[in-house]
């Protein structure tokens, strides 16, 4: 190799803060930034859906009843067999899909963090019991169980979030536990204890902030997984029920028109794909930025 070896982009800067370094690393990950931009745009579009479209998600155009119509200037993604504007329904679907994805991931993270923190901090019996329980849940085929539960319960939005989140906390629990195991022996924990800090103070004020990087990364990736799961459930008619549109149940309704109106199925799926792809890119970028092991 010549001496023109490119200087490492990662120049160590002594007085750089954790956030500053993370931000600089994140700036190098172009796909992650693109993902973030896409997600922000999607989020804004979902929030401002009513002002972005002249139609409502259940408003029917009597002239277009009976057959789906192809994309046109008036209806950029066509209309469905009931004369409803497809783009509007996808826009409103984004609200539910994004909300369910985000909240399920948060539920899973909260549960996993709590279980992992208790397990890693206290060790001993607490650890043994909680980790055996985690092993058990990890030995269950989760996808079939989620499908069965949704089929039995015909869940409301809140219940659906609890089902998806309640069966997705295991990897976070293991991750947080391992972080706590290594962090609980640090000097600052000892110092806090010497000053009379309570267990919960040490756990949540001192240790948890130091473990937050990997938790943020795993939460981000969990959002993608939850969106995929919700859309699969709704696709089978087991998740969010019509007339509330989600990307999954829009696909459910469009499968019958695959032959004559394939665009009805193409657009909602494309939105799922783009969203989950953005989430995964963002998660990858955050891992580069936040994971101290790199």
């Amino acid at each position, binding site marked *: 190799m010549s001496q023109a070896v490119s200087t490492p982009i990662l120049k160590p800067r002594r007085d750089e803060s954790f956030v500053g370094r993370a931000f600089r690393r994140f700036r190098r990950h172009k796909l992650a930034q693109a993902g973030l931009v896409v997600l922000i745009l999607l989020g804004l579009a979902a929030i401002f859906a009513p002002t972005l479209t002249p139609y409502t998600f259940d408003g029917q155009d009597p002239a277009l009843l009976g057959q789906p119509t192809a994309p046109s200037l008036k209806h950029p993604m066509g209309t469905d067999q009931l004369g409803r504007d497809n783009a509007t329904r996808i826009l409103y679907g984004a609200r539910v899909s994004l909300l369910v994805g985000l909240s399920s991931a948060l539920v899973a993270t909260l549960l996993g963090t709590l279980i992992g923190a208790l397990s890693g901090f206290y060790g001993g019996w607490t650890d043994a019991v909680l980790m*055996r329980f985690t092993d058990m849940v990890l030995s269950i*085929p989760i*996808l*079939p169980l989620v499908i069965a539960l949704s*089929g*039995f319960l015909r869940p409301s939005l809140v219940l659906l979030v609890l089902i998806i989140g309640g069966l997705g906390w295991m990897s976070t629990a293991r991750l947080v536990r391992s972080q706590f195991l290594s962090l609980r022996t640090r000097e600052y924990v000892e110092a806090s204890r010497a000053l009379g800090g309570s267990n919960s103070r040490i756990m949540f004020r001192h240790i948890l902030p130091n473990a937050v990087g990997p938790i943020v990364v795993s939460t981000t990736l969990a959002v993608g997984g939850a969106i995929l799961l919700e859309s*699969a459930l709704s696709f089978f008619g087991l998740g969010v029920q019509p007339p509330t549109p989600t990307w999954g149940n829009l696909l459910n309704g469009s*499968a019958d028109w695959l032959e004559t109106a394939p665009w009805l199925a193409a657009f909602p799926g494309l939105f799922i*794909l783009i969203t989950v792809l953005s989430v995964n890119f963002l998660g990858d970028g955050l891992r580069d930025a936040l994971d101290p092991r790199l």
Partner: protein
Amino acid sequence: MNFSVYLTRRVLSSIPLLLGVSIILYGVLHLAPGGPTDVYADNPSVSPEALKNLERELGLDQPVPIQYLRWLGALLRGEWGYSIRSGRPVTADISERVGPTLALGGTAFALALLVALPLGILSALRRYSATDYIFTFLSFLGISMPIFWLALMLQALFAINLRLLPSAGLETIGDGSFVDRLRHLILPACILAVANIASWGRFVRSSMLDVLGLDYIRTARAKGLSERVVTYRHALRNALVPVVTVIALDFAAILSGAVITETIFAWPGMGRLFLEAMNGRDYPVLMALLMIGSFALIVTNVLTDLVYSLIDPRIRYE
């Protein structure tokens, strides 16, 4: 502690694990509101007395813990019970579905392996090349793909527009030759393989990159060995050790992922049986399928440890 003691301990410790799993599953399924007799609830020709009799016959009038103990007792004697929908033994209902699922899952597994390994290796060897970037992007695409949607799109393309492949089913009625079955297998097997190709490929790539950066690879190159020998004899062998774990653990996941694929392609396997049993609240069949799934997960876990120690002599079980 030697390996056989370790293995015995692992096998023994999976017994309480399975027991715990069965309690969780049984509780969750049976405590959910509703039951197998719901289908008759709105039927005016079925009297409330008849419903009560039916529930007593199925043992559903007992408290859930008693039902569980009965189910467990029967299971320990090798009795899986009878399907509520078909009245046949659960083993009979399931055994005719095992073949199609293993055929589909096995094909998808082999396909994923055949594509992911070379792609991952190639991507690692040409790090930061166009090939690598394209592969990385495609693998992200695969991981983020809603496979049920991809299935719909491929059905629309290959079965409806191009009329190249059948859209669903195990075989054409009245045909059923090997070629015909193979044609039916292509789409579902590809769909089932997509996510695994992506995640395994990425894993192979990163594992390969880890090994290629080690000192002994530089030593091998310094000795004047050809790049071929360095890559395949020295690097690949060690890079595959962690890969084996991931791939083996995913086999059980492929089987449970078949729930979605089999339903979309009307593939008469265990996954579709699961959805049918769910719609009819067929508790014995549901429990049996879920327990088989858990058993597969636990067994692959133990087997993976076994294989791991065989291919990597550095690993000792202390």
